[in-house]
């Protein structure tokens, strides 16, 4: 199986520096999540690996192949699912799949085992035009088309954007199956909570990689004491907690407010006592483990300062 080696890649569009000195080494069989907001450079990086855009600087190899020299060979061992639905809307499900198979000079049966579990959900509608499918079905069809030639490397550009929480989970369950097959997966997402599904994640912001590591390592490295505050009205509590003299970051996370203490020796008991002294009752403060979003925001604040 092939991995992906990205070395010191930079790319600009006119005055916009889309990627700045990006390096990533994706191991064969690894699932690497490229996580960051819109405009961070995720699509540009994936398109460079997909041999669709050339970098201004740097080298990219897929397996033993170079994206400039050997792009044809790379395209044979790669499956790519763009962020925007790009199949033929006028063709039916089965026609799209047959088209992709014929382009790659395979038959659908050849690698049917790989797409079987996904395709079976589409089979009852196989004569329906792709343009008439729901978002979830389009996504499944696009994935089948990207897998029809049994690629060694799969590139997925924001497959879960705009998809509801249940469909997102199902999509990641499907990816877990492909991972078992040994396929190298580079997948981008703006949803930080999807990090835990990846072997490693690369956090990307404004064209730079903030950090690349297993998600558990990133959150374990959160540099300061972090407390969860539960109780009270979120908006009022936010305003209050920002007045805490040792508050470093104060961010809401659902019904819990995360407060980072600026001192290594800060404790939840201290914050709890301070909140009580402000006349607010029924508030619980405890130590909590950082999540990827905490870590992302911390890394982001360090690079922009």
């Amino acid at each position, binding site marked *: 199986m092939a991995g992906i080696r990205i070395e010191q890649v930079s790319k600009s569009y006119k005055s916009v520096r889309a990627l700045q000195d990006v390096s990533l080494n994706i191991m064969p069989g690894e699932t690497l999540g490229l996580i*960051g*907001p*819109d*405009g*961070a450079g995720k699509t540009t990086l994936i398109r460079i690996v997909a041999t669709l855009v050339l970098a201004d600087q740097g080298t990219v190899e897929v397996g033993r192949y170079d994206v400039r020299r050997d792009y044809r060979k790379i395209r044979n061992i790669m499956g790519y699912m763009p962020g925007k639905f790009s199949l033929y809307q006028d063709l039916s499900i089965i026609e799209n799949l047959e088209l992709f198979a014929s382009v790659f000079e395979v038959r659908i049966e050849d690698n049917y085992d790989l797409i079987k579990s996904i395709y079976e959900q589409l089979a009852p509608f196989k004569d329906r035009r792709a343009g008439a499918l*729901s*978002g*979830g079905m389009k996504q499944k069809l696009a994935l089948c088309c990207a897998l029809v030639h049994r690629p060694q490397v799969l590139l997925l550009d924001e497959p879960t*954007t*705009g*998809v*509801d*929480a*249940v*469909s*997102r*989970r199902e999509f990641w369950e499907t990816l877990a199956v492909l991972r078992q097959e040994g396929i190298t997966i580079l997948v981008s997402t*703006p*949803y*930080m*909570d999807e990090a835990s599904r990846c072997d490693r994640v690369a956090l990307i*912001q404004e064209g730079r990689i903030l950090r690349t590591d297993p998600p558990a390592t990133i959150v374990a490295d959160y540099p300061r004491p972090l407390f969860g505050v539960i109780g009270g009205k*979120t*908006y009022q509590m*936010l305003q209050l907690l920002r007045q805490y003299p040792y508050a470093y970051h104060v*961010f*809401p*996370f*659902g*019904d819990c407010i995360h407060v980072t203490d600026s001192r290594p020796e800060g404790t939840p008991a201290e914050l709890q006592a301070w909140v009580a002294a402000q006349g607010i009752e029924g508030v619980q403060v405890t130590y909590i483990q950082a999540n990827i*979003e905490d870590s*992302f*925001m911390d890394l*982001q*604040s360090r690079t922009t300062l």
Partner: protein
Amino acid sequence: MREHSSIYARNLTRRFGDFVAVDQISFEVSVGEIFGFLGANGAGKTTAIRMLCGLLTPTSGEAWVAGLDLFRQAEEIKRRIGYMSQRFSLYNDLTVAENIRLYGGIYGLRLADIRRKTDELLERLQLKDMRRELIEELPLGWKQKLAFSVALLHDPAIIFLDEPTGGVDPVTRRQFWEMIYETAAHGTTVFVTTHYMDEAEYCNRVSIMDQGRIAALDTPAALKKQFNVSSMDEVFVKLVRRQR
């Protein structure tokens, strides 16, 4: 009741041929409430929002928006509401100031008011230096905050936000929600959709649509209790999976 509610819907229904996109939904939203409108893809959310904004005529039922009858006063409703979505908000090839002026004009504000509001708004968002920049030059987060403010330019009674934070970085996403809180605190009703389940927790109440119906509606705390789970994400997954 319907006069006092910001939104009041009874058995609101929309069919497209044989397909019932929205199937007799009933709910009320009170003035100044932050109301989360969730649902799976294809559940009927967009159709429901288009009806409530006066853009699509309901097949049957009854609905009042900002105290106006949706069936007879759809045009007046459009003047009393604001709308912003991730997909479409501002014109990329107009400058910041031009966009504000355009929207102000569309909503019939006087030029002097537009000028005053433009200054206030740019001051508040710290965008004064960006006045003559094209929208396409702005980072997404700023664009979304500006779009939100522009949708509030005519002091609407209700603002509809359709996935306003999709793809926005985590810090900006939180700043955006603080703007929502402030807006609601000033008495504007906020009707918001999102795929981020942590954001559902920030709403006063949340409804979850599934297959054209409202399958659950309550405060986030009550929904979590009802489904015996600890997060809105789990509520959503449990509910939608049960229906499938």
